[in-house]
């Protein structure tokens, strides 16, 4: 019998306690200074804030790239494809394509580290949604340099537009 009352009491007390906790959170969300936790993000309307080191879609500088293949070798998933041509009457390579397959890329940033000329970095674009797999293949050599280097936002439109340009937008540092 004592246990019966104890069970009853503990049930009532702890249920009331739990309900009080949720009620307090309920009330706190109406505090104009605090608001709800999720109210800090207005993602589709405003871009989601990302940290300075955010590892988003790459930034790539075609003008300095020497096509040394270091990033492609470092990539654990082999998602970087570099097209290069020998420069006539000169040394080094001319980059004819620098494609990253974002259906494979896992944003580990291992490609950034070995680059001898610091031409590839992780950017802050986090959304590159597209309707076909074609959109996941981004050829940075055919993107406008501003977009590729992150001064303008990397966006699906630019990626789509880059597919129709036949020539790379710049020939690399040896041009």
């Amino acid at each position, binding site marked *: 019998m004592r246990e*019966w009352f104890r*069970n*009853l009491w503990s049930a009532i007390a702890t*249920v009331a306690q*739990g*309900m009080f*906790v*949720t*009620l307090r*959170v*309920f009330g*706190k*969300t*109406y505090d104009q200074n605090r608001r*709800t*936790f*999720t*109210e800090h993000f207005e993602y589709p309307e405003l871009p989601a804030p990302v940290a300075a080191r955010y590892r988003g879609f790459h930034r790539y500088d075609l003008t300095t790239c020497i096509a040394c293949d270091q990033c492609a070798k470092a990539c654990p998933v082999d998602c970087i494809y570099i097209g290069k041509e020998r420069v006539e009457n000169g040394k080094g390579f001319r980059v004819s394509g620098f494609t990253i397959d974002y259906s494979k890329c896992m944003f580990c940033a291992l490609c950034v580290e070995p680059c001898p000329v610091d031409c590839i970095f992780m950017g802050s674009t986090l959304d590159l949604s597209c309707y076909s797999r074609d959109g996941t293949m981004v050829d940075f050599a055919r993107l406008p340099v501003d977009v590729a280097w992150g001064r303008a936002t990397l966006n699906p439109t630019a990626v789509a537009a880059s597919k129709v340009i036949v020539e790379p937008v710049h020939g690399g540092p040896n041009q």
Partner: protein
Amino acid sequence: MVEFLTSTVGLSGWLAWTIAAVVSAVLVLNVIAGGALAFIWAERKVSARIQDRLGPTRTGGRFGWLQSVADGIKLLAKEDLMPQGADGLLFRLAPYVSFCASFCAFIALPFAFDVVGQRLNVAVFFVVAVLGLEVFGVILAGYASASKWSLFGAMREAAQVVSYEVPLGMCVVVPVMIAGTMDMVTIAEKQAGWFWNWYIFHDPFTFVIFWVYVTCAVASVNRAPFDLAEAESELVAGFHTEYSGLRWSYFFMAEYGSMFLVSAMAAVLFLGGWNGPVPLASLAGLSAGTGDTAPYVVRLLGLANLVAKASLGVIVMMWIRWTLPRLRIDQVMATCLKYCTPIAAVMFAGAMLWKIALPGGLVPGLSRPGGEIREGWLPGPGGAAIPGESTRDGSLARVTP
């Protein structure tokens, strides 16, 4: 309405009755459907706030107030699937059985003292009985789905709801005993006046039994922490695992309909029905019986009162749902048989003794235990205690005034 149709429009009797019935049914149906939409929206918002979120914000401009409508349209557009092994007829029938039960009970529910579909002198009994029919829909759905999870849900529902009828019945009987009638209109009328006339404050036993009623009501409409029939972490979705589209939404509407119903019943039985905590109408000198606009104002006030109380009850149920973990089936049964039933029984006995010992209440001047008998101007069957209703037991006979 029937009179209007036969005398003024000149229709024959049966046609008039049919039209009147259809009009009333559509009215009630829309009230339930509209109410369900509102409550689904409220559930989203309440749960969101409890969880430090905002809930729907975009649909329909601010506050996502069109969210339920959008959901409804989506559900309408969804394909109605039926598992291959399902019992076709029962599978299709189940949601409607479930919905009808919840819907029928609204007939006897008074919203203000003569705003009631059909005033019954056994309204309490009727509502409890009809509400109990909802379980058939669930059992049919679980059985007919040809899914093992659904079957588990159905078996649990059968065990649980039928058991909870017992303490629920006992809780409901207490106000009936105090009022001396099963007519919900009269029960509510007897609690008129200030809030200390409400039956929840009638004596300590009714106060306790109100909470037992809340527990049993939550259990009997399958809300968390007693939502064993659709325990999503164990049974995927329980009895409605295999349902989709509109059929599924009927279950949903039935659930919200019953939630509102049991809350409204709590309001009528314990919380003074349509009588506000402060008798505004009588303080303002408005009378429900006489005057040009006064009756309408009083009824509207009563309606608002009852809907507010019932909605509050529904919101409390949501609050409970988003706070507590779910019980196990044996614990649900133990709660019913080892806790709710004995407590309800003891409280019932206590309330009875209280009524015998202190017929005038604790402070005689404060409360009016008999209530103000206003049957004189009330339409329909008498609201007074029906002798014989409670004379089966000798002790009860003395209680009835």
